[in-house]
């Protein structure tokens, strides 16, 4: 069994935002609905202060509250795959916002209808926008007034499954989420939690990586090597 997890090392993160830029490009993000954000805060008191950086994206919980809420109202637009990836079906989503309301991390973002057609009004479409919807991965066929969020780059994970290369997820850039590939200081890692030899398992064990807001019992699949702050 494969359980995909991400480990973010806040001791190494320097706040360059490469992961955020990569996500924007890879997943055709629309204004006001990012899948990955950087939260920074100062800790300590001058002159002994410093900034702590942490990137937030979907935690792809094992017990996703968003999916439970969506199922409870009968919409059933949120799905969790066997590998642990939580995705939203834009065709089923009714934009009620319950997923956002119950998510302990406030992850799902509403797609603003006016931002779908043209990223730069009055100008030509960018090459990414010009890709016909039918040729895009379902997670990139965004619709106005629906909710969207990080998918662990589901198009890459799906490709790994199709190619029979699930064991290469987290190792080959082709099958690894872009944000984790581009990090210049190796602060992000992605891989299989059920593989005792995977890098993520070693880091979680050695650096005592923790999950945020565990009191909600959603069993997040993103681990943080924490550095300061109140979580």
């Amino acid at each position, binding site marked *: 069994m494969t359980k995909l997890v991400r480990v973010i090392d806040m001791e190494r993160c320097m706040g360059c935002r490469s992961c955020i830029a990569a996500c924007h490009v890879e997943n055709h993000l629309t204004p006001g609905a990012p899948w990955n954000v950087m939260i920074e805060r100062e800790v300590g008191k001058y002159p002994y202060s410093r900034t702590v950086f942490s990137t*937030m*994206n979907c935690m792809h919980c094992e*017990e996703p*509250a968003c999916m439970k809420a969506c199922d409870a109202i009968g919409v059933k637009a949120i799905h969790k795959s066997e590998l642990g990836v939580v995705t939203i079906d834009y065709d089923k989503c009714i934009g009620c916002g319950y997923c956002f309301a119950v998510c302990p991390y*406030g*992850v799902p973002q509403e797609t603003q209808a006016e931002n779908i057609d043209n990223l730069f009004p009055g100008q030509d479409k960018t090459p990414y926008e010009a890709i016909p919807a039918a040729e895009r991965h379902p997670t990139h066929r965004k619709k106005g007034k629906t909710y969207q969020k990080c998918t662990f780059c589901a198009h890459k994970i799906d490709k790994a499954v199709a190619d029979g290369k699930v064991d290469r997820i987290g190792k080959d850039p082709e099958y690894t989420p872009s944000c984790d590939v581009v990090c210049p200081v190796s602060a992000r890692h992605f891989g299989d939690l059920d593989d005792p030899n995977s890098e993520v398992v070693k880091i979680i064990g050695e650096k005592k990586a923790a999950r945020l807001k565990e009191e*909600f*019992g959603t069993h997040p699949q993103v681990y943080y090597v924490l550095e300061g702050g*109140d979580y």
Partner: protein
Amino acid sequence: MWTKIAAATLMVATSVAFAEKPVQSVELSRVAEKLRNHEIKIEQGPGMDREHGRFHVIHSDVLMLDCSTCHGKPKYREGVLNFSKFKPFPVKAKGQFEKDVCLGCHQEGGIATSFYTPSTTDE
């Protein structure tokens, strides 16, 4: 003598027990049950909108929860890692809502529809 002390202790313990069990939560559980059984009908469909969505109608109008029960200060708490924190706080909003409040009713075993399982920290 000991009988009197035991009786007095029992009375104090009973009064404390009753004092610690808010009457409101009993009422809330009854109303929540009626909502689940559709004995209380809500016209609006699912949605967060104050006028046209079920969310605020259920929590505010039916369960009679005060806005301040969920909405705190008009800004995000310092030091709390929340994805929403990167966005400017809406000017017209009642105040940032504290997600922890939801746990009271929506955790497994609570009076409302369960969205959260018990804490994972005891694993």
